[in-house]
């Protein structure tokens, strides 16, 4: 299977930026982060001790509507908890994340926005990392669909997602904790449990037994997982950035 592709710091004016392409859904997202910036005219909304996180999604060929506002809300609440907004220079300032959908089809009115959510989350994470915004942890996300015959499809295509009986987006922190769960459709708890295991395997590799508390260290940073992908992308970028230093050593 072809994995996703991403590149970091490709915009000149933004503090941090990233582009991300998801091969199964075909979406290509361009993300930028400006942080910390002044947010004038919003004095009342600013919190005195924390940074304000703002997320803005710009659809490729429609005007932003209810769907975008809804996903913005999900991403904002999640990132607000991860970004260390009390670091020096951040309180009373803004972390402005702008995500533009620059490739792939438009989401028609009434269609699910969950297919787009993992790409948006990955792009914002990569952009935040490229902008060196302090965060308490990183994360990885996966989209899982459950078909009408109760078959679990990991990384579904748009056609599969449309036909599915339920759609799930799960995000796991770098320590393996569940950070976000957005589900849509009809399903029972057992199905959700298997979905969760499947998503965990997609994000972080083999599911580890927790009974004896042993953690297999080799499983960490496994390439092919969503988390491994984020790590590899950032690592490659750092190698390129520090080529001058590595060469002189």
């Amino acid at each position: 299977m072809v994995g996703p592709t991403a590149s970091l710091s490709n915009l000149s004016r933004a503090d941090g930026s990233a582009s991300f392409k998801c091969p199964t859904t075909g979406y290509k997202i361009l993300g930028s982060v400006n942080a910390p910036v002044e947010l004038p005219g919003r004095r009342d909304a600013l919190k005195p001790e924390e940074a304000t996180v703002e997320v803005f999604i710009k659809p490729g060929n429609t005007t932003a509507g209810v769907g975008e506002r809804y996903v913005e809300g999900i991403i904002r609440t999640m990132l607000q908890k991860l970004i260390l907004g009390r670091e020096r220079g951040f309180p009373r300032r803004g972390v402005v994340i702008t995500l533009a959908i620059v490739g792939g089809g438009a989401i028609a009115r009434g269609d699910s926005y969950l297919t787009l959510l993992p790409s948006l989350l990955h792009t914002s994470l990569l952009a935040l990392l490229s902008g060196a915004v302090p965060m308490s942890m990183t994360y990885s996300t996966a989209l899982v669909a459950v078909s009408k015959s109760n078959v679990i499809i990991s990384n579904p295509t748009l056609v599969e997602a449309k036909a599915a009986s339920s759609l799930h987006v799960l995000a796991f922190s770098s320590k393996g904790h569940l950070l976000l769960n957005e589900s849509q459709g009809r399903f029972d708890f057992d199905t959700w449990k298997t979905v969760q295991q499947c998503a965990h395997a997609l994000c972080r590799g083999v599911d580890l037994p927790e009974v004896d508390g042993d953690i297999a260290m080799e499983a960490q940073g496994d390439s092919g997982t969503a988390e491994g992908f984020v790590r590899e992308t950032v690592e490659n970028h750092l190698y390129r950035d520090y080529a001058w230093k590595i060469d002189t050593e």
Partner: protein
Amino acid sequence: MSKEAPLSIAEREFILEALRQDSRLDGRTPDQFRPLKISFGDEYGHVNLELGNTSIIVRISAEVTKPRDERPFDGLFNINLELSAMGSPAWENGRPNDVESSVTHVLDSVIRHSNALDTESLCILKGVSCWSIRADVHVVAYDGNLTDAACIAVMTGLQHFRRPDAVVRDGQVVVYGVEERVPVALNITHKPLSVTFFAFNESKNIIVDATLKEEQASEGELVIGINNGGEMCFMNKFSGATINAREIVTRTSVALEKVKDLNAQIDRAMQADLALRAKRGMAEESRAENDR
């Protein structure tokens, strides 16, 4: 409202003094554009344009809608430009600013009102259905001369875009998918582009394609929209210092020369891309093996 970081006095003086001696910060002549780079995305009408450090993505899309009641023979065409914090930290998401309204005004006048896209050809069935063409302009990085860059990008997108074929059969509108019938190009009547001039030193120095720093140091601007045939479709002297009438006449011929050159560059980029697509499409068709 946020603002771009202003020029320091020394920087401004440097730019002005350099122009007095007929040179620019990046070594261009007054009538020279920055290198223009046009590339295309996977789908038709997706243009990535770079003019120096200014970078723009344009996506053209089409959908079938009902025409307006007062114009049953006309299709719809809209240019949508929304500046976001991606292009420049000084722009706030979801809040229109001065740059946005002025660029939208120029784009509308030069491309839409000059009828560069023949909207009558977008009509499918009188008063019932027509194509609505939408051009979305995403400004990805801003380093001056947004107007001309956006204008070039939208015109390139319109020429590159292919809409699905639609026919009327027994009073029913049938839209064919891209696989069923070869999609059709839009009907472009002429190819107007805008050229923005910036004036310095009591309008003694007038330059094209200013960078952000030059724009900040300028005294006034002049926008000329003109097509390959030398027909002027837009002229505006928005604000700032006065420009001599004779100067405007000479600038018009400069603009014509620039537009001819830019249109040639657009054509070259587009022919290269279409040739590539034709080859790829052919390879797909003539492949002996199949997916099984």
